[in-house]
């Protein structure tokens, strides 16, 4: 801790200005990601400047969390839950295989039209309504290949 951080905050109930600023980092990264699509060098640099943090710290933090994208992704990021409960409910493998074939991409890849990226994720706390799939910020429960079909068609505007 720097001497500055050790100083008592002026108002006893609030963290020091510096601590509060640092606490904004996760939020700032979300905002930058929304603006730039993914956290490219420019986005990270801007966050670093705004919050007065070294770029290396900003990068180190961003790279720790799976919801920050350091590389470009498609317009819709499809995340299939790979957890045990979803697997038992016939999800995970079945759905991943189905989407792979339908979109012609592997896990981690993006379709050539830039529309879809396929990922697997760990438990999203929908184990009781599994299999679960997330697309961007939406959660879809009790999924089947048929429901995935309809969803993807709808998203693709077909």
């Amino acid at each position, binding site marked *: *801790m720097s001497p500055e951080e050790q100083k008592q*905050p002026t108002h006893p109930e609030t963290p020091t200005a510096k601590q509060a600023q640092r606490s904004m980092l996760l939020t700032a990264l979300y905002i930058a990601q929304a603006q730039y699509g993914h956290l490219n060098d420019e986005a990270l640099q801007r966050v670093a400047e705004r919050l007065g943090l070294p770029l290396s710290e900003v990068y180190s933090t961003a790279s720790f969390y799976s919801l*920050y994208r350091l590389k470009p992704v498609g317009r819709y990021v499809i995340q299939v839950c*790979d957890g*045990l409960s979803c697997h*038992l409910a016939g999800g995970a493998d079945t759905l991943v295989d189905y989407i792979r074939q339908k979109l012609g991409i592997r896990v981690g890849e993006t379709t050539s039209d830039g529309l879809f990226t396929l990922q697997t994720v*760990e438990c999203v706390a929908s184990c009781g309504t599994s299999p679960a799939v997330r697309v961007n*910020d939406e959660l879809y429960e009790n999924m089947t290949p048929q429901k995935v079909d309809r969803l993807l068609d709808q998203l693709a505007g077909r």
Partner: protein
Amino acid sequence: MTFEKILLRNVEIPNSEKIDVYLKRGGYQALRKALHEHTPDELVEMVKASGLRGRGGAGFPAGLKWSFMPKAADVTKYVCVNTDEGEPGTFKDRLLVERDPHSIIEGVAIAAYAVGAHRAFVYIRGEFFTGVKRWMKAIDDAYARGFLGANILGSGFDLDLSVHRGAGAYICGEETAMLESLEGKRGEPRLKPPYPAQVGLYARPTLVHNVETLACVPHIVLRGPEWFASIGTEDSTGPKIFCVSGDVNRPGNYELPLGTPLREIIYEHAGGIKEGRQLKAVIPGGASTPMLTAEHLDVPMAFETLHAIGTMLGTGGITVMDERVCIVSAALRLTRFFAHESCGKCTPCRVGTQRLVDTLQRIEDGRGQQGDIERLLSLCDGIAGHTFCPMGDAAVNPTLSSIKHFRHEYEVHIERHRCPMSS
């Protein structure tokens, strides 16, 4: 047996997340009572007497934790609400946050008053997008009605509450990693002790609680600690939300007294195993807890009884596997989760979990070698007890418990060079 719903009493009512519905259901009366009729010390004593234990996984007595917070009024203290739910098989906190956020706010406010904190933070998983929105709306409404902010209900007590969104990392559910993340850093656990109640957020004493634990607090205040303690067993009091998933007919959240037999939860409440198949294995309390077999079905679901048979109540997330499930593949999938979520800070967990995954994968794929079971056991030996945070101990449980109960199935995989369960 029917049990009067306490924690889940609101969740099925339309618009249960709205403040007006909550108020109509008697909401915020406990906060009023706590602020006007009780001193902070009395509340700490009430929670102690209730026997309430943490519902986030460790089961630590809540009242004791409250009493560890320094009493001095001139010390800045914080309360943090752990909404990072991500333990595979667990889906109760998301339900509470989405369907009954005010019951948690009420619990936070009472806890903050009891320990003398004027600032509280919600840490929520980045993936819970609906949850984030529900939290924010509920907090705004609670401020507007005077349940948060300055001079709450004319009591002179002030409390600010705000939401911090995580960004995808299971380890941030571990309380010290959560504090790091709240401070805007990588979510790597801190060394304990000191515990958060001594040195927590921004190095101030901090009370961290799980959502379900906090949701119990208003009921303890309203109906009294004796009532709460009369539910459950002597060492595990109160109601508990059991999350049942996997091969059962009616997966879902079931609120029952602690101590309810596992058999009753699976066969009566969750409707038994699909298509009348046999139960093979069951994880009693989330992916971190050692699995059990059909032999153990009569165990009462309580902290002490599960501990006595070598497992844990954990989060109360029950995952049921029927006779068709390959135990090696289940262990593999569970271990892959831990390998994926290892924060990488310490070598036994970072490297050890990956080596476990590699070995389990090899066995499952029919490339297992003589000595692989011993290799797995010795890897577990090198991880458990040698890591920086409790996740290392958790990560070995799927492997250890599956070998303990199903060693023969591992041997068959290795001897026949294939998975006997796949056709």
